[in-house]
């Protein structure tokens, strides 16, 4: 379908597509087998200027537009969702700095991220704080010119690989969610080390690591924004990052679909109506997923105020579609679908994470429901004011 991409957007799409096919395609199977981080590929992405799209123009980027992020993530993910995840974390990690950091912090970190020289990551999740993000146990206590960090972050994408980490920690336990603050922590700061690396079902090219903070000394100027505002920053950052996850899911679905088309074409079963029904549904579902992702991206880029619902739509729907399409693809390919050489099984394994990370789909449904309830409340209040 036609999404009326501008010339620049279309050029970005073609550039990323070409890059993915030239540099990632031949590597994806090995990356999946070995679960090695695609360091070379990420470096080359930096050289190609692909991290610039995450960063505003004033700091060496091309504008930090959500639509650009979606276009790029979809095209990378169409070839390999593991690499796409490693790449997209660049947006998830830089987002809080872009929107909530001081001018000094922005000047210090963002240009390096834009060039790909430094990789960033986002440290929120803990063993007891998965969906319940406010339940984080990591603490940051202020001592003189430093915050002293203690705690363990879990399942952190690009952990160990990244240089710059946005870490959420409690500066005031008595205040719960309102006591959470965001700090910029650099690799190599004393007391910051890495723990176990996870062995995952899919997106194996992306690294998932524990971050360990033991009396880690972080200069107090590395506090982002205000103390106690971290939780709000996290939520607002998620609103901007979620369409990127939708785009990763969309890329997987698109990749699966193209593989299936190729298969049924070679098997000469295009005239089978069972197959035609599945093809038609896949194509329709994928277009609907793309439409919702792009629409949310455009809405956020327009500066709209209430974006949480749209952001959750754009993560929820494409990820469910990616799973649906991948499961059906296995059915179409039959036993061949089980084999590594056809790649559908990898895309199915990859697809599952999109229903989980950056807020499970249950959390997305919760966000959407709460927004709907909020809207109902607002309407009621309005009617009340009218005296009706």
């Amino acid at each position, binding site marked *: 379908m036609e999404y009326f991409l501008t010339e620049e957007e279309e050029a970005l799409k073609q550039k990323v597509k070409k890059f993915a096919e030239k540099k990632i395609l031949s590597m994806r199977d090995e990356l999946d087998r070995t679960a090695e981080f695609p360091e070379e590929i990420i470096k080359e992405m930096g050289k190609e200027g692909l991290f610039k799209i995450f960063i505003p123009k004033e700091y060496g980027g091309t504008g930090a537009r959500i639509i650009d992020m979606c276009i790029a993530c979809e095209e990378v993910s169409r070839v390999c969702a593991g690499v796409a995840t490693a790449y997209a974390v660049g947006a998830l990690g830089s987002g809080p700095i872009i929107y909530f950091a001081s001018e000094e912090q922005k000047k210090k970190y963002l240009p390096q991220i834009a060039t790909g020289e430094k990789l960033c990551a986002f440290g929120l*999740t803990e063993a*007891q704080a*998965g*969906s*319940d993000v406010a*339940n984080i146990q990591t603490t940051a206590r202020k001592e003189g010119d430093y915050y002293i960090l203690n705690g363990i972050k879990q*399942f952190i994408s690009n952990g160990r690989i990244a240089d710059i980490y946005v870490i959420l920690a409690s500066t005031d336990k008595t205040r719960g969610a309102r006591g959470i603050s965001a700090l910029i922590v650099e690799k190599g700061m004393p007391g910051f080390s890495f723990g176990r690396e*996870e*062995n*995952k*079902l*899919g997106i194996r090219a992306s690294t998932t690591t524990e971050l360990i903070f033991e009396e880690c000394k972080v200069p107090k100027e590395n506090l982002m924004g205000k103390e106690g505002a971290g939780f709000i920053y996290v939520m607002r950052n998620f609103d901007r990052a979620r369409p990127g996850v939708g785009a990763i899911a969309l890329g997987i679905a698109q990749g699966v679909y193209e593989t299936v088309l190729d298969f049924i074409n070679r098997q000469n*079963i295009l005239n*089978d109506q*069972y*197959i035609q029904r599945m093809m038609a549904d896949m194509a329709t579902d994928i277009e609907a997923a793309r439409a919702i992702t792009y629409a949310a991206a455009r809405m956020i880029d327009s500066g709209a105020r209430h974006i949480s619902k749209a952001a959750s739509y754009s993560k929820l729907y494409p990820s469910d579609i990616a*799973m649906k399409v991948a*499961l059906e693809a*296995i*059915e*179409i390919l*039959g*036993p061949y*679908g*089980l*084999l*590594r*050489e056809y790649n559908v*099984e990898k895309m*199915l*394994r990859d697809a*599952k*994470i999109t*229903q*989980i*990370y950056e807020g*499970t*789909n*249950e959390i997305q*449904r*919760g966000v959407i429901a709460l927004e709907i309830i909020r809207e109902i409340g607002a309407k009621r209040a309005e009617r009340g004011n009218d005296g009706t």
Partner: protein
Amino acid sequence: MELNREATLLQNEIRKFARDVISQKVDELDKNERFPRDELKSLATMGMLGAVIPENYGGVALDTTGLVVVFEEISKTCASIALILSVHNGLFVYPILKFGNDEMKKKYLPIASTGEIIGGFAEVSTNELQIKLEGENYLINGRNPILLNGDGGGPFIIITPVLENKNKLTPFLFDKNISGYEVKKNSNIIGMKSAGICEVVFNNCIIPKTNIIGEPNRGTKILEEIKSFVHICFAAIGLGIAEGSLENAIKYAKTRVQFGAPIINFGMIREKILEMATKIEAARLLIYDTAFTRDAGKDYTKLSAIARYFINQAVAEITTSAIQIYGGYGYMKDYPVERYFRDAQVIRTLLNSSPQLKELIVQRTI
């Protein structure tokens, strides 16, 4: 649904074995892709390698209900082991028993009962193998990526069309005395990692006509009949996988605390459990009804296809939901639900070209 006394005793016995023995090994089996020889030896002493073999050949001749009980119970813990048993019994022993000559029966059934041999099977298309008649022999070249029970060491049955007659199937029985083929582990399969699925490569392999089960080009009917039977077995494995993943998901949801409460208290988790439990119960009724129908000597072809079709969809959804309930943990290899999910893909796909299964149900219905 009530099981009779015999089936209940069998269920208890297998359940105990799964709990005491298999559950200790299942992670290691999956991780190392190890073929479970020791576990199969124990199962052989319990008669499970001769499950469909009559007593006069040394088997225990379970009825269909008994078989379903066995596959269901083992798959709750380890689907790979259940798959090995079902391939041996349903795809190797059963065709010989039903369509083989006396010589084959005498030669293979007694040693299959004891587990001295573990039989394998592959269904192969002409794209993969070229089989040509040359005098009294067939000449075979090509490869097939999915030889079930390949690690068992054979013998195995391959059902395939020959070049002279591409629309008909011929079942060949490969034994150790046949040379010109090589069996090697296929690690490139998403799941059933310890079921010993192999790749088989034929290089000018010569097999005599006498190794055909039944007559040349008469295999289509044989395959249909085998499939009807095996659909029940594979459906039972799918059911076990679904039940195992639900059980694990419930256990996890009861202990995982988020937002100050075990997540099992949350409506969206409860709704998943509702969906999973409902589909499992429906699948159970279908599968056992199919087994009862076959045991009563009635035509079960349509029912077994429906049972298989239903569980194929259900097991995909249920294992996906189990991972979802575990959240991020479910995606990690330290927890069992990702294995159930991978194994589910295999069981819902094997011997199931999906339009064919659907068409069979439609034709029998209209």
